[in-house]
Protein backbone atom coordinates (compact mmCIF):
# COMPACT_ATOMS: atom_id res chain seq x y z
CA UNK A 1 0.00 0.00 0.00
CA UNK A 2 1.04 3.62 -0.24
CA UNK A 3 2.17 5.93 2.56
CA UNK A 4 -0.96 8.01 2.05
CA UNK A 5 -3.39 5.09 2.20
CA UNK A 6 -1.64 3.77 5.32
CA UNK A 7 -1.92 7.19 7.00
CA UNK A 8 -5.63 7.31 6.16
CA UNK A 9 -6.32 3.73 7.26
CA UNK A 10 -4.69 4.30 10.65
CA UNK A 11 -6.12 7.83 10.98
CA UNK A 12 -2.67 9.16 11.86
CA UNK A 13 -2.02 12.75 12.88
CA UNK A 14 0.27 13.91 10.07
CA UNK A 15 3.18 16.27 10.77
CA UNK A 16 4.75 15.89 7.35
CA UNK A 17 3.13 14.09 4.43
CA UNK A 18 6.41 13.19 2.66
CA UNK A 19 5.95 11.28 -0.56
CA UNK A 20 2.45 9.84 -0.15
CA UNK A 21 2.83 7.67 -3.26
CA UNK A 22 5.78 5.69 -1.93
CA UNK A 23 5.05 2.04 -1.34
CA UNK A 24 5.02 0.48 2.14
CA UNK A 25 4.88 -3.29 2.38
CA UNK A 26 6.90 -4.00 5.49
CA UNK A 27 7.20 -2.71 9.02
CA UNK A 28 9.73 -2.37 11.80
CA UNK A 29 9.31 -1.37 15.44
CA UNK A 30 12.02 -0.26 17.84
CA UNK A 31 13.59 2.52 19.84
CA UNK A 32 17.19 1.31 19.46
CA UNK A 33 18.58 3.04 16.40
CA UNK A 34 21.17 0.37 15.68
CA UNK A 35 18.47 -2.30 15.77
CA UNK A 36 16.53 -0.46 13.09
CA UNK A 37 19.72 0.35 11.17
CA UNK A 38 20.78 -3.27 11.18
CA UNK A 39 17.44 -4.94 10.63
CA UNK A 40 14.79 -2.74 9.03
CA UNK A 41 13.53 -4.17 5.76
CA UNK A 42 13.63 -1.95 2.68
CA UNK A 43 10.68 0.44 2.43
CA UNK A 44 9.39 -0.33 5.93
CA UNK A 45 7.15 1.85 8.06
CA UNK A 46 8.94 2.49 11.36
CA UNK A 47 7.02 2.57 14.65
CA UNK A 48 8.92 4.16 17.52
CA UNK A 49 8.68 6.06 20.79
CA UNK A 50 11.79 8.13 20.03
CA UNK A 51 11.14 11.69 18.85
CA UNK A 52 14.59 13.21 18.20
CA UNK A 53 16.29 14.38 15.04
CA UNK A 54 18.51 11.34 14.62
CA UNK A 55 15.54 9.26 13.50
CA UNK A 56 15.66 11.13 10.20
CA UNK A 57 19.22 10.05 9.34
CA UNK A 58 18.31 6.41 9.95
CA UNK A 59 15.14 6.79 7.86
CA UNK A 60 17.10 8.32 4.97
CA UNK A 61 19.85 5.69 5.02
CA UNK A 62 17.40 2.79 5.36
CA UNK A 63 14.99 4.23 2.77
CA UNK A 64 12.17 4.29 5.30
CA UNK A 65 9.30 6.32 3.80
CA UNK A 66 7.18 6.71 6.96
CA UNK A 67 8.00 7.16 10.64
CA UNK A 68 5.11 6.66 13.07
CA UNK A 69 5.50 8.10 16.57
CA UNK A 70 3.41 5.90 18.82
CA UNK A 71 1.50 6.63 22.03
CA UNK A 72 0.69 10.20 21.00
CA UNK A 73 4.30 11.37 21.00
CA UNK A 74 5.17 14.77 19.51
CA UNK A 75 8.24 15.14 17.27
CA UNK A 76 11.08 17.44 18.31
CA UNK A 77 11.10 20.51 16.02
CA UNK A 78 14.49 19.46 14.58
CA UNK A 79 13.07 16.07 13.59
CA UNK A 80 10.12 17.67 11.84
CA UNK A 81 12.43 20.08 9.97
CA UNK A 82 14.69 17.25 8.84
CA UNK A 83 11.79 15.07 7.72
CA UNK A 84 10.48 17.94 5.61
CA UNK A 85 13.90 18.45 4.07
CA UNK A 86 14.35 14.75 3.33
CA UNK A 87 10.73 14.17 2.25
CA UNK A 88 10.06 11.53 4.90
CA UNK A 89 6.47 11.15 6.08
CA UNK A 90 6.14 11.74 9.84
CA UNK A 91 2.96 11.09 11.80
CA UNK A 92 1.73 10.45 15.31
CA UNK A 93 -0.55 7.59 16.35
CA UNK A 94 -2.59 7.66 19.54
CA UNK A 95 -2.15 3.93 20.11
CA UNK A 96 0.76 2.13 21.73
CA UNK A 97 3.52 0.53 19.62
CA UNK A 98 1.80 -2.84 20.16
CA UNK A 99 -1.53 -1.49 18.92
CA UNK A 100 0.01 0.23 15.89
CA UNK A 101 1.93 -2.89 14.90
CA UNK A 102 -1.25 -4.94 15.25
CA UNK A 103 -3.09 -2.52 12.97
CA UNK A 104 -0.22 -2.57 10.42
CA UNK A 105 -0.25 -6.36 10.49
CA UNK A 106 -4.01 -6.37 9.88
CA UNK A 107 -3.38 -4.16 6.83
CA UNK A 108 -1.13 -6.87 5.44
CA UNK A 109 2.29 -5.47 6.28
CA UNK A 110 4.98 -8.01 7.11
CA UNK A 111 8.00 -7.68 9.36
Amino acid at each position, binding site marked *: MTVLSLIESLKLDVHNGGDGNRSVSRGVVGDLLSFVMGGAPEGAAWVTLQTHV*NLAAVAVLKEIPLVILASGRTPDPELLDRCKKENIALATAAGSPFEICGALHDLGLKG
Partner: protein
Amino acid sequence: MDSHYEVEFTVRGDDFLAAGEASNQIKETLIMLGVPSAISRRASVITYEAEMNLVIHSGGGTLRAVITPEKLTIQATDRGPGIPDLHLAMREGFSTAPDRVREMGFGAGMGLPNIKRNSDNLEIESEVGKGTTLTATILFHEGPGDRR
Protein backbone atom coordinates in the same frame (compact mmCIF):
# COMPACT_ATOMS: atom_id res chain seq x y z
CA MET B 1 33.91 5.61 -13.99
CA ASP B 2 37.42 6.49 -12.90
CA SER B 3 39.28 3.57 -11.43
CA HIS B 4 39.60 5.31 -8.05
CA TYR B 5 37.12 7.61 -6.37
CA GLU B 6 37.53 8.98 -2.88
CA VAL B 7 35.48 11.16 -0.54
CA GLU B 8 36.33 12.26 2.99
CA PHE B 9 34.25 14.01 5.63
CA THR B 10 35.03 15.50 9.00
CA VAL B 11 32.69 14.27 11.73
CA ARG B 12 32.39 16.42 14.85
CA GLY B 13 32.22 14.81 18.27
CA ASP B 14 28.96 15.16 20.21
CA ASP B 15 27.24 16.91 17.30
CA PHE B 16 24.00 14.94 17.22
CA LEU B 17 22.34 17.47 14.92
CA ALA B 18 24.80 16.83 12.09
CA ALA B 19 25.19 13.11 12.85
CA GLY B 20 24.45 11.01 9.79
CA GLU B 21 25.28 13.70 7.23
CA ALA B 22 28.60 12.18 6.22
CA SER B 23 26.92 8.78 5.77
CA ASN B 24 24.21 10.37 3.69
CA GLN B 25 26.75 12.08 1.43
CA ILE B 26 28.66 8.83 0.98
CA LYS B 27 25.41 7.07 0.08
CA GLU B 28 24.63 9.75 -2.51
CA THR B 29 28.13 9.36 -3.93
CA LEU B 30 27.68 5.58 -4.24
CA ILE B 31 24.34 6.05 -6.00
CA MET B 32 25.90 8.62 -8.33
CA LEU B 33 28.66 6.14 -9.20
CA GLY B 34 26.06 3.47 -9.98
CA VAL B 35 27.02 1.13 -7.15
CA PRO B 36 24.31 -1.58 -6.85
CA SER B 37 21.70 -0.77 -4.22
CA ALA B 38 22.34 -4.00 -2.29
CA ILE B 39 25.91 -2.80 -1.76
CA SER B 40 25.03 0.81 -0.97
CA ARG B 41 22.58 -0.45 1.67
CA ARG B 42 25.29 -2.48 3.35
CA ALA B 43 27.63 0.49 3.09
CA SER B 44 25.06 2.75 4.78
CA VAL B 45 24.92 0.50 7.85
CA ILE B 46 28.72 0.57 8.08
CA THR B 47 29.12 4.32 7.55
CA TYR B 48 26.31 5.23 9.92
CA GLU B 49 27.56 3.06 12.77
CA ALA B 50 31.13 4.24 12.25
CA GLU B 51 29.98 7.85 12.10
CA MET B 52 27.97 7.49 15.31
CA ASN B 53 30.98 5.94 17.02
CA LEU B 54 32.97 9.04 16.07
CA VAL B 55 30.19 11.29 17.40
CA ILE B 56 29.60 9.36 20.64
CA HIS B 57 32.96 7.97 21.67
CA SER B 58 35.93 9.66 20.06
CA GLY B 59 35.37 13.41 20.04
CA GLY B 60 35.06 13.30 16.26
CA GLY B 61 37.29 12.20 13.42
CA THR B 62 37.17 11.54 9.71
CA LEU B 63 35.03 9.21 7.65
CA ARG B 64 36.41 8.23 4.26
CA ALA B 65 35.12 6.10 1.41
CA VAL B 66 37.33 4.79 -1.39
CA ILE B 67 35.69 3.17 -4.37
CA THR B 68 37.64 1.14 -6.94
CA PRO B 69 36.27 -1.29 -9.53
CA GLU B 70 37.00 -4.17 -7.12
CA LYS B 71 35.87 -2.89 -3.76
CA LEU B 72 34.52 -0.21 -1.49
CA THR B 73 36.65 0.69 1.51
CA ILE B 74 35.20 2.67 4.41
CA GLN B 75 37.62 4.07 6.94
CA ALA B 76 36.87 5.87 10.19
CA THR B 77 39.85 7.49 11.90
CA ASP B 78 39.97 9.29 15.23
CA ARG B 79 42.35 10.45 17.90
CA GLY B 80 39.99 9.51 20.69
CA PRO B 81 40.48 7.42 23.79
CA GLY B 82 41.02 4.13 21.95
CA ILE B 83 39.43 0.75 22.66
CA PRO B 84 41.07 -1.10 25.59
CA ASP B 85 39.56 -4.52 24.80
CA LEU B 86 38.63 -5.03 21.15
CA HIS B 87 37.25 -8.51 21.71
CA LEU B 88 34.84 -7.14 24.33
CA ALA B 89 33.91 -4.16 22.14
CA MET B 90 32.89 -6.51 19.32
CA ARG B 91 30.52 -8.41 21.59
CA GLU B 92 26.85 -7.79 20.89
CA GLY B 93 25.31 -5.81 23.73
CA PHE B 94 28.56 -4.47 25.18
CA SER B 95 28.65 -0.68 25.31
CA THR B 96 30.51 2.11 27.07
CA ALA B 97 28.10 4.83 25.95
CA PRO B 98 26.88 7.27 28.61
CA ASP B 99 23.26 7.17 29.79
CA ARG B 100 22.21 10.38 28.00
CA VAL B 101 23.20 8.78 24.70
CA ARG B 102 21.50 5.48 25.51
CA GLU B 103 18.28 7.31 26.23
CA MET B 104 18.30 8.43 22.60
CA GLY B 105 18.43 4.82 21.49
CA PHE B 106 22.18 4.72 20.83
CA GLY B 107 24.76 2.73 22.74
CA ALA B 108 22.98 -0.60 22.59
CA GLY B 109 26.21 -2.44 21.82
CA MET B 110 25.13 -3.21 18.27
CA GLY B 111 27.26 -0.79 16.26
CA LEU B 112 30.44 -2.80 15.72
CA PRO B 113 28.52 -6.09 15.26
CA ASN B 114 26.37 -4.33 12.62
CA ILE B 115 29.52 -3.15 10.87
CA LYS B 116 31.05 -6.62 10.94
CA ARG B 117 27.90 -8.26 9.56
CA ASN B 118 27.85 -5.91 6.59
CA SER B 119 31.57 -6.04 5.79
CA ASP B 120 33.50 -8.61 3.78
CA ASN B 121 36.53 -7.65 5.83
CA LEU B 122 36.89 -5.57 8.98
CA GLU B 123 40.08 -4.38 10.62
CA ILE B 124 40.28 -2.24 13.74
CA GLU B 125 43.54 -0.80 14.96
CA SER B 126 43.31 0.92 18.30
CA GLU B 127 45.68 2.23 20.89
CA VAL B 128 44.49 3.51 24.26
CA GLY B 129 45.09 7.25 24.53
CA LYS B 130 46.00 7.58 20.83
CA GLY B 131 42.97 6.68 18.78
CA THR B 132 41.29 4.18 16.54
CA THR B 133 41.23 3.39 12.83
CA LEU B 134 38.43 1.18 11.56
CA THR B 135 38.68 -0.14 8.02
CA ALA B 136 35.72 -2.00 6.54
CA THR B 137 35.73 -3.46 3.04
CA ILE B 138 32.92 -4.56 0.75
CA LEU B 139 33.99 -6.52 -2.32
CA PHE B 140 32.17 -5.96 -5.58
CA HIS B 141 31.35 -9.18 -7.35
CA GLU B 142 30.42 -7.09 -10.34
CA GLY B 143 31.98 -3.76 -11.22
CA PRO B 144 30.35 -0.87 -9.36
CA GLY B 145 29.31 0.59 -12.69
CA ASP B 146 27.11 -2.41 -13.46
CA ARG B 147 23.66 -1.39 -12.30
CA ARG B 148 21.42 -4.27 -11.45
